[in-house]
């Protein structure tokens, strides 16, 4: 049977890029549909209005919104339409390369224990904890592949929670480090814990056809103008397109996956830049639109064999939505507390902190309870965006601050200290009250129902979040930081989402099989973070990349292996 393309990938971010790259490299024709525009290095500037205030990289919420439900203290759910309440924006970067363009690139592998949580720690009441259908060993070669193909910089050090590696060290040395990194190392030494260099998906030297980092001090939330950041676009899609077998269709919003009486997908229906309805077909379809939109697309794609949405015959699509987060904190290093030469170092803008603590990945602390899954603690610079920083200063003890008192507060905030943030990641529990469904009362500009995300959370997130954040605070205190605070939050970080189409061996409790192919749609694969049954205890972009490369190999095998190798042999 002839198709327009061998493979059709919907979504060009961290889940779609590896598939497009690997399939094109194996000699297959690939089309990538991306709803947003195709920006390149020439379009990305350090512009706070563009990235973070006027939201130039995400859709207009008046035309394309979501509905969010959060739990009320008194019980019940508060419903918000994001068109009205824009602070709950679930879009994270709708451009070629997706939100990987705007990541900070804090890269963490999962650890073996993440794949066997249920069998290692037992069930948790109110949480849908399961073991993964694959093991760390299945994914390890692909983590390594990401290091080499996407470009990960870092330094392996010996510590009790170092995950197994098939190579001794990273292919790129660590990015330049800020003076604060050394202070964290000293504080951790004092406390008897391990300060671990944090790997980054940022090139520390030119390679892979890209330049190295320019250390502008503005990374997360901004597109990268050098190509050093390992976005799906810079690291994968540019190469795939250059090879001649991958075609990217930007400004193409997929509205529906059409399926036939056998239940298989027959075509993708999408709207082009002029809102004209178009179709494309392929032998294999790969959906990677980021968790919420992936589930929404499936739920909107009803068909003869899929009356409740594609791959949803067991009602599992959208369930067990996950996030990465749990705890946070901050502290400030007052320049006045340091000798002159150290002050100059602390004021430096550009180098990264790049420190993380893994000592509490499993918490074995009788004061806290039985042995259980913990998480990682990352130390990062305060985000430099000045308008956002200033805006957080206007709240005074008795109301709004304005006039000269506000101006003096701004001077103190901006001029006198360097700030360190703690980001603590528990293993976000999969629960019944965190899921995606359709909201038929709100439609987007193409008249399709928008996604509704109910964002309930398990109290365990708060407990572990508190624990981790307070351990981070101990480090800041040991560094001599002032105004140290730490806290937990059940409010999900909307930029780090996963789950909704989890993989597993049992079709009744999962959407995908171990190969990330839909249980009941033979030609559908899902390769964004949707497949994850648990979130791990760290940001999961590296895991999404690695798993997408793993699934790409399964698809290549299915289509008959590497066409170019068989030609040359």
């Amino acid at each position, binding site marked *: 049977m002839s198709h327009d393309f061998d493979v059709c990938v919907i979504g060009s971010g961290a889940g779609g890029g590896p598939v497009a790259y690997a399939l094109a490299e194996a000699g297959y024709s690939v089309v990538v549909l991306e709803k947003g525009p195709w920006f390149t290095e020439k379009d990305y500037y350090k512009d706070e209005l563009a990235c973070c205030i006027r939201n130039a990289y995400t859709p207009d919420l008046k035309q394309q919104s979501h509905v969010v439900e959060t739990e009320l203290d008194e019980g019940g759910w508060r419903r918000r339409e994001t068109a009205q309440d824009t602070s709950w924006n679930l879009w994270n970067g709708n451009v070629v390369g997706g939100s990987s363009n705007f990541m900070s690139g804090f890269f963490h592998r999962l650890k073996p224990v993440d794949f066997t949580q249920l069998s290692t720690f037992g069930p948790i009441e109110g949480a849908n904890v399961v073991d993964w259908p694959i093991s760390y060993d299945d994914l390890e070669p692909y983590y390594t592949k990401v290091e080499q193909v996407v470009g990960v910089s870092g330094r392996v050090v010996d510590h009790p929670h170092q995950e197994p590696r098939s190579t001794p060290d990273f292919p790129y040395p660590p990015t330049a480090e800020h003076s604060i990194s050394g202070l964290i190392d000293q504080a951790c030494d004092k406390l008897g814990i391990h300060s671990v260099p944090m790997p980054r998906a940022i090139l520390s030297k030119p390679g892979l056809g890209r330049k190295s980092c320019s250390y502008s001090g503005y990374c997360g939330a901004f597109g990268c103008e050098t190509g050093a950041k390992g976005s799906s676009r810079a690291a994968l899609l540019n190469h795939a397109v250059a090879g001649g077998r991958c075609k990217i269709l930007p400004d193409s919003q997929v509205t529906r996956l059409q399926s036939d009486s056998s239940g298989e997908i027959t075509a993708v229906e999408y709207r082009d830049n002029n809102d004209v309805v178009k179709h494309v077909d392929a032998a294999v379809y790969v959906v990677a639109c980021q968790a919420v939109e992936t589930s929404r697309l499936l739920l909107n794609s009803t068909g003869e064999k899929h009356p409740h949405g594609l791959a949803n015959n067991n009602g599992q699509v959208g369930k067990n939505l996950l996030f990465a987060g749990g705890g946070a904190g901050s502290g400030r290093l007052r320049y006045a507390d340091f000798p002159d030469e150290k002050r100059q170092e602390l004021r430096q803008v550009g180098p990264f902190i790049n420190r993380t603590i893994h000592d509490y990945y499993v918490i074995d602390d009788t004061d806290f309870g039985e042995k259980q899954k913990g998480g990682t603690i990352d130390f990062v610079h305060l985000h430099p965006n000045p308008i956002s920083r200033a805006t957080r200063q206007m709240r005074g003890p008795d109301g*709004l601050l304005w006039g000269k008192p*506000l101006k003096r507060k701004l*001077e103190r905030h*901006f001029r006198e200290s360097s700030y360190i943030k703690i980001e603590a990641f528990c293993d976000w529990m999969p629960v019944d009250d965190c899921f995606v469904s359709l909201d038929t009362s709100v439609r987007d500009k193409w008249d399709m129902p928008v996604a509704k995300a109910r964002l309930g959370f398990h109290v365990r997130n708060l407990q572990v979040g508190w624990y981790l954040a307070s351990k981070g605070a101990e480090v800041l205190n040991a560094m001599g930081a002032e105004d140290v605070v730490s806290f937990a939050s059940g409010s999900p970080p909307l930029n780090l989402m996963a789950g909704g189409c989890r993989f597993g061996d049992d079709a009744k409790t999962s959407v995908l099989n171990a190969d990330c192919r839909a249980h009941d749609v033979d030609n559908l694969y899902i390769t964004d973070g949707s497949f994850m049954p648990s979130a791990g205890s760290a940001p999961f972009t590296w895991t999404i990349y690695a798993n997408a490369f793993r699934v790409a190999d399964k698809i290549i095998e299915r289509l008959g292996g590497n066409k170019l190798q068989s030609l040359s042999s």
Partner: protein
Amino acid sequence: MDRRYFLKFTSAGAAATAATTASLPLYAAPKQQTAGDDGLSDRQWLTLDAVLDHLFPSEAEAPGAREVMAVHWLQRVLRDDETDEVHKQFLRAGVAQVDETSAELYQKTFAALQHEQREAVLRHMEKSKQQGRAWLQEMIRYIFEALLSDPVYGGNPQAVGWKWLQHTPGFPRPPKEKRYFLL
């Protein structure tokens, strides 16, 4: 990007820059007494200018709302076709509320009040008026946009806000043709 929007936005920007170069307050320019396409009368622009000046006053060592042309920033927001109409109404209603509250407390327009009276009016709005606090918060936020965004957008002239707060901007900085609304 919509070409009409581009023209509209840049002409408003050019007008604002011209007014500033000449060091003239905005309201010195001849203008109709009725509401223009920004929906505010000259008198209301005087009110808004006085509010912004009160919220972020000029000082010898530190720029205020006037130095960073915050009132021009608000004018662009109100004239921008891309600004949500509900938001524009909210902004305009707040200006009207300032003068109403001034009349209620002192039987004068806000611009005619002494410093302490202005403080009393705005605090009264903050504590007791529907949307008063939200509006004041939004005014301060817009002052911060004018103070700390890239000068290419027409605020923060000669990076006066960044210099004052010793803030190091990121690079590369956006050129005129790559402002967010042209992407």
